[in-house]
């Protein structure tokens, strides 16, 4: 992580990297095409619910990386910036995955509760078998 910025100091050095305009335009075009594919896939491609979700997420991630790399100059910045973004995304994933696993594990408790008819509660209900 130690990035010692050793460079000659000169008057009015231009800070930050110049991303050429044509590259920006190209990235925009790719983004629009990808959006078109995502929306189009609703009617043309059907990989089942989870398949469609996965495809949509992959396309969205590609679009996201393109925006981050070129529009946000991530590709030309110091590695610490990429580390910050990746750390944030890692903790988003950690939080979501653990919440998913846990809610998945105890979901039966909720569905059992909802399956029981409230009015029958006064009688000795043993609808809950297991």
């Amino acid at each position, binding site marked *: 992580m130690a990035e010692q*910025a*050793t460079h000659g100091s000169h008057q009015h050095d231009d800070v930050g990297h110049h991303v050429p305009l044509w590259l920006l*335009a190209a990235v925009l075009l790719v983004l629009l095409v990808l*959006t078109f594919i995502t929306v189009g896939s609703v009617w043309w491609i059907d990989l089942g*619910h989870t398949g469609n979700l996965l495809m949509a*997420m992959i396309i969205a991630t590609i679009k996201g990386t393109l925006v981050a790399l070129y529009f946000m100059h991530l590709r030309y*910045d110091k590695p610490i910036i990429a580390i910050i973004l990746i750390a944030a995304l890692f*903790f988003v994933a950690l939080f979501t995955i653990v*919440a998913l696993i846990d809610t998945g594990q105890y979901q039966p408790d909720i569905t059992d509760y909802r399956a029981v008819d409230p009015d029958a509660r006064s009688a000795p209900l043993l609808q809950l078998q297991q």
Partner: protein
Amino acid sequence: MSTATDAESHAVHEHPPHLAHHFDTEEQQFEADVQGMWLFLATEILLFAGLFCAYAVYRAHHPEIFYHAYKQHYLSVFWGSVNTALLLVSSFTIAAAVWCAQHNYQKWLVWMLVATLALGSGFLVVKYIEYSHKIHSGLLWGTGFNPQKHGHGHDDEHNDAHDEAHAATAHADEHEGDDALHDEPADAGASADTSAEDQLQWVYEPGGTGPRGLLEPGSAIELSEDEQVRNVQTFFGIYFLMTGLHGLHVIAGLLAITWLLVKALKGHFTAAYFTPVPIVGLYWHVVDLVWIYLFPLLYLIH
């Protein structure tokens, strides 16, 4: 990162105008600003993480709600795609604005910022259209979820539903707990669907006393037996939270770009000093990044 200039030559160095007294070189200041902004953007990403996690949990365990919402075409894919395109292009224009600032094309910089503002405002207009359609059709969160048949047969109350729309939109946008709205939260939802008085209004009882935490399916519209999906209000709870919070961030972004535009018009940005432009640009790109994920998750559930 330590300064490259040794102590002696620094003292003799004449201090460039935009360099803060506690920084040694402009390069150091610019990189510090960019790193600081990226750290703030990490917190924005994690702020939305809470909503994405709630979305993931409720879609994983009640997928039928999300497929039902899609099959009923509650959200219009057309307007969603338009919004996505608007934000992508606005992302391009602000990136171009950074390029213009770096190359000292001050006139083009102004035009690019104006374009970004226009596209961003367009996004909000489309959001307004979508929200008013939801409110008109009674597709709200929590107890406000009482869907009527869409469009036909409801022109007569169109006007007052329209007025309700403003109240509810304001409500939807400032749902972040503006306690001014605290006093009649349920009414905003209930009064929105004036034609629903006669239907059995499921009275929301606090705590678990509700019928096992299950809300009646949309009784107003004819649903086949297997389509009787309960708790569809969860979808709209998450929809309005996500798009509402995102909408607030779009508004904040537009305000920041307006501030940039004013400074650009005054000619504050030159090739030597233009740092605020990429900083606001980074913020705008993250707002676009969040929408890139929101769009497929909410609009394209097939």
